[in-house]
C-alpha cells in the first residue's frame, strides 16, 4: 500500500511538472513568437501521458484498498443474489403462465439456443468440407478409415478429415503399427 502511495506521489509530481510548468511555458513561447507548434504538441502529449499514469496509479490504489475491495465483493454477491431471486420469481410466475398460453419457458428457450449453437458449429465445420473434399477428390476411397480409427484409444474421437491426405497418412501408420 505504501509502495502504491509513493508511486502515486511520483506520478503526481510528474503530472504537475508537465501540466503546470512545461505546457504553459511552451504556450507562452508561442504567444511571444519564439516557440513552435511541434514543441507545444510534445509538451501537451507529455502532460496527457502523465495524467494517464496518475489515473492508473489511482485505480491501483482503489483496487488495493481493503475497504473498497470488501464493498465491491459485497455488492457483487448481493447483485448475484438479487439476480437469482429475480430469476426464481420470474420462473415461478411465468413458468406456469407461459405453458398455459402455449409459449415455451425460459429453460426450454435456453436449451433450444444451446442446441442452435451446436448446430451452427456443425454447419460451419460442414460448410468448410466441400473445398477440402475437392482437394482430395483425386485420391483413393476413404471407406476403410472409420474401422481403422476405431482402433485408436481416444475419448470421443471424431476425425474431421478436412482434406483427407493427412488422415490417410496417419491411418496407414496406424495400420503399420497394428501389423507390427
Amino acid at each position, binding site marked *: 500500500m505504501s509502495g502504491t502511495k509513493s508511486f502515486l506521489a511520483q506520478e503526481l509530481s510528474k503530472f504537475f511538472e508537465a501540466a503546470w510548468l512545461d505546457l504553459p511555458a511552451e504556450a507562452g513561447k508561442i504567444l511571444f513568437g519564439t516557440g513552435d507548434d511541434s514543441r507545444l504538441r510534445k509538451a501537451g502529449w507529455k502532460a496527457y501521458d502523465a495524467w494517464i499514469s496518475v489515473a492508473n496509479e489511482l485505480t491501483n490504489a482503489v483496487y488495493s484498498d481493503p475497504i473498497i475491495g470488501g464493498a465491491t465483493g459485497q455488492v457483487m454477491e448481493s447483485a448475484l443474489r438479487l439476480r437469482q431471486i429475480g430469476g426464481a420469481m420470474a420462473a415461478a410466475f411465468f413458468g406456469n403462465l407461459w405453458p398455459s398460453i402455449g409459449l415455451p419457458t425460459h429453460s426450454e428457450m435456453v436449451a433450444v439456443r444451446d442446441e442452435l449453437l451446436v448446430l451452427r458449429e456443425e454447419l460451419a465445420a460442414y460448410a468448410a468440407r466441400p473445398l477440402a473434399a475437392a482437394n482430395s477428390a483425386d485420391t483413393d476411397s476413404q471407406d476403410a478409415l472409420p474401422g481403422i480409427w476405431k482402433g485408436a484409444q481416444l*475419448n470421443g474421437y471424431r476425425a474431421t478429415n478436412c482434406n483427407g491426405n493427412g488422415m490417410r497418412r496417419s491411418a496407414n501408420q496406424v495400420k503399420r503399427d497394428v501389423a507390427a
Partner: protein
Amino acid sequence: MSLLSEVAGFWMEGAMRTMEAFGQGYGSPQTDPPATTPYEVVYEGGMVRLRHYQPVERRHKTPLLIVYALIKRPFILDLQPGKSVVESLVQQGFEVYMTDWLPPARKDSWRGFDAYVNGDVADAVRVLQIREGTEQINLMGYCLGALLTLLYTSLHSDSVKNLITLTVPFDMGVRDLPFYNLVDVVSDDAVELVTRIYGNCPAWMVNGGFNLMAPMHHALDKYVGRYRNGPREGYAEMFELFEHWMRSDMPLAGQLYREMHQLIFKRNALKNGDLRIADEVVDLGRITCPLLNVVAEQDDVVHPRSSFGLVEHVGSEDKRNLAFPTGHIGAVVSAGAIGKLWPQVGQWLAERDQ
C-alpha cells in the same frame, strides 16, 4: 478540434463493437478473421478442434502441440504476416498443431481440469502420436493453456519430450498486480452463484475482468493511442484486429471457473502441491522432460513473479527461465518477440529434437 472529434469517433466505434459483441455473445468461432497461416482441422472432439499447420520445409522430427488459453479465440497467435507465432514456427521447420477451444454451452458446465486435461488435451496429444507415428511430442502452452500443459505433463509425463510454458499463472500467491486484490474479495459463494445462475462464467464477465485490469486504457487511452499512431503504416489494421481479439472472449466452463478461482487463485494449490485432478495429486516433481519457462518481464496479466518460480518445482534437470522485455500479449505479437524471442524458442526446441 480534430483530436477531440477523431478520438470521439474511435470511442463511438469501440462502444458500438462492444454492444455488438455483447449482443452476439462475444467470441464466436465464425467471426474469426481469416487465418494468416493456412491450416487444416484434423480432429474434433470434446470441446477441442485441432488445427494442423504444415512447415514450409520440415526440419525437425518432433511435432509441436500448442495449447491455447480457454478464454479468448486463438487468432492472436496467428494475427498478421510477420506478427504470427505460428508463422514463425512453421518457417523454422516445425510441424505445428494448435488447439482451437470451442465455447462451452450450459450443458458443458460440468467440465473442469479433468475434462480439459485428461480428456481434450490427452486426446489432442494422442492424435499427434497417431498422425506423426511418434510416442513423444513437444508441448507448449500460453497463459491458461500453459497451466493445462503443466497439469497434463505432470499427469502424463511419458508423452512429452519438451515442455514450453509461456506466461504461466503458476504461483498465484503473488499479489503484485493490484487487480488480483479484487479476485480475493470474490467469495466462494459468489462463484457458486455465478455457476448456478449462468451455468458457466459468461463471456461478458470474462471480458469485464480483462477491462478491469486496465480501465483507463480500455475507456480512453487506447482510442487516443489510435489517434496518435494513425499515420503509422499498418497501425489502423493492427488496432482493428487487436480490438477484435479483445472482444473474442469465450465463457469459462462452470467447474473450471470454480477450480481456477478456488484452487489456483485463492488457495494457490498448484504451487502448494495440494491440487488433485480426478483423485490424482498433481506432483510437478514428476515433470522430468526439459522445460523452457518463457516469462514476459512487463506482463500485467500474469505477473512475472507468478511464473519465475516454476522451474524450482519441477523434477527436470534441463530447465530454465527465458525472460523477455515485453508484455503478456506483446510476447506473441510484438515485432521484437517475433524477431528475437521465437527464434530463440525454436532454437531451444531444435537442440532437443534428437
